[in-house]
């Protein structure tokens, strides 16, 4: 980036030489900025490095120097785990639960937000503005307020014959509905934005050719915003994978646990903490979000910045 002080557009009389103390001051300022950044960012780096190092060794010095490499920490992948007095079952059903939950949330969020986003974008109906206002308002509602009542609702659903155990309390699918319902307003808003961008002509052509609204939506317009839908899907999956609070509140049998609950159980007492096992399990749990982070960090950060590039 060219320094304006040496710009050739300045008047000839203007001396384009930078005084020494000026350069020193700038240099010191830069060093200070870098140092500050490194110091405040250090804890985060230390923590993540520790997570990795601790998972592959039995003892770690000062957070990042492993002392004895070992794969024993990863034994939960192939055997039962006993810490102190508690035994934890095989992890693979738990992984399946987590995966099913995340997929369930993704599917529901994508489907409903694609449908309702379209309606919000295209249809003029009474109360449209009020509806969007209400849902945005509710998004800022204290979560715990909703949780208490939802527990009751799930309890009632639980008692329903046949489908009760599936959509009610203590069920993965019950929580899928809860989580999706809470994510959908925001997702619908985002998808609405995508639909808004699409010119009317494509849709008009579909109607002229005899499509119903649904057919036009499915065959013509949805494919156009496929990348947008894909990003909504990815975010929904990650949100579902990382979910802890609702699962913790509504699920109480170990066989229905997801990885977040499994790992939390491992934390246990301070007396029995096995950091090696804990960090390995945590790292295992973190694989999808980590992959996503590594592959998209550049585009993630670029996308958030509109505006003139510095």
């Amino acid at each position, binding site marked *: 980036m060219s320094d*304006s*002080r040496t710009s050739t557009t300045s008047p000839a009389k203007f001396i384009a030489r930078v005084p020494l103390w000026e350069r020193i001051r700038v240099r010191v*300022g*830069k060093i200070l*900025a*870098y140092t500050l*950044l490194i110091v405040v*960012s250090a*804890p*985060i*780096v*230390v*923590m*993540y490095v520790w997570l990795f190092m601790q998972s592959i060794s039995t003892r770690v*010095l*000062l*957070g990042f120097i492993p002392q004895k490499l070992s794969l024993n920490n990863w034994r939960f992948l192939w055997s039962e785990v006993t810490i102190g007095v508690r035994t934890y079952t095989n992890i693979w059903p738990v992984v399946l639960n987590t995966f099913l939950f995340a997929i369930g949330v993704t599917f529901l969020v994508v489907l409903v937000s694609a*449908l*309702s986003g379209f*309606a919000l974008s295209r*249809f003029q109906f009474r109360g449209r503005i009020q509806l969007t206002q209400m849902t945005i308002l*509710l998004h800022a*509602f*204290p*979560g*715990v*307020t*909703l*949780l*208490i*009542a*939802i*527990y*009751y*609702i799930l309890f009632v659903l639980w008692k329903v014959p046949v489908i009760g155990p599936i959509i009610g309390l203590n069920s993965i699918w019950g929580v899928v*509905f809860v989580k999706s*319902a*809470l994510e*959908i307003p925001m997702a619908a808003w985002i998808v609405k934005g995508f639909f808004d961008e699409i010119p009317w002509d494509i849709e008009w052509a579909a109607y002229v050719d005899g499509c119903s*609204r*649904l057919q036009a939506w499915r065959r013509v317009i949805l494919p156009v915003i496929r990348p947008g839908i894909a990003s909504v899907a990815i975010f929904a999956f990650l949100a579902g994978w*990382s979910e*802890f*609070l609702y699962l913790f509140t509504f699920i109480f049998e170990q066989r229905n646990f997801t990885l*977040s609950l499994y790992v939390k159980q491992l*934390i246990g007492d*301070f007396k029995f903490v096995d*950091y090696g096992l804990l*960090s390995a399990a*945590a790292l295992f749990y973190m694989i999808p979000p980590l992959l*996503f*982070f590594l592959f998209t*960090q550049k585009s993630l*950060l670029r996308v*958030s*910045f*509109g*505006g*003139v590039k*510095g």
Partner: protein
Amino acid sequence: MATEAAMIESPQRKPISLLARLKNIAVYVPFLGPFLFLVVTYFFLPVVLTTALSFTSMDSKMEWNFVGLENFRRLFSDPIIPGIARNTAIYVILTCVFNVGFGFFLALLTTYFVERENIGLIFRSIWLLPRMTPSVIYIIMWQWFVSPTELGFVNQILRAFGQPPQAWLARRPMPILILVNGFIGASFGMIIFSAAIKSIPVDLIRAARVDGASDLAIVRRIIVPMLKWPIMFLTIWQILSLLASYEYILLLTDGGPFYKSEVWSLNAYHRAFSSLQFGYGASIALVLVVVGVIATFIMLKLFGFQRLMEPAKAGA
């Protein structure tokens, strides 16, 4: 002329039959139906239910036992409530200040002071990492960091200086919690402020430099005024979302030791789900809603008024 046209057209308007009306609505059903069903069941209905529940003494028996204002009377005479209210105030205000202030600090450092785009990007990525980590894992890392045993990071550093290990979470849960939430919250501010700083026309800054302005002056006179709106928005948003947040507190200290780090929303959660006193918990949650609404009004009034006074600057 328009009325004449209307009068000419009006004889062609027939009353819409019920069947036609139903057909009209039928178009909406597949699109808005699922959405409405989910939003009503899991948003609107719970709001109504919680309000109703707060007037009952529902417990593990799940029975509707209306007791009027009994819950609220009990709530305001509970001796631990003032402490919880104080904890909540400290937590919300300090974390908000941290999030906004530190977010600004980070944005400034990574977009203005650090001129290499790549390095700024690296640091911003580092700060985004906690936000993308599942909460349980993030807490595990912090638990290790401030662990009371010798294995904890801080204690290991202390040991290098010959000091004994300390039980940080037991002694100072609040400051640690502020940092734990702050590291996550600051990244949000960092993103918003970075975008805002990057959208400031570079020529403004260059012109200021040519005029001999120091970095501090540039920050104070150019950057901060341009960020007034994001700062305002973020403060309001953070205060409201912090009032309702408790997941990390639940995971790290669970309100302990002995309610020392218990905040209002967490207390509502504990009462409802640990003690299974749903009615009482609902009443605690309801108070939170009222506080949130009042806080929103106050803040909008405060900030809205200022916004009336200062018209939007070009490029802001």
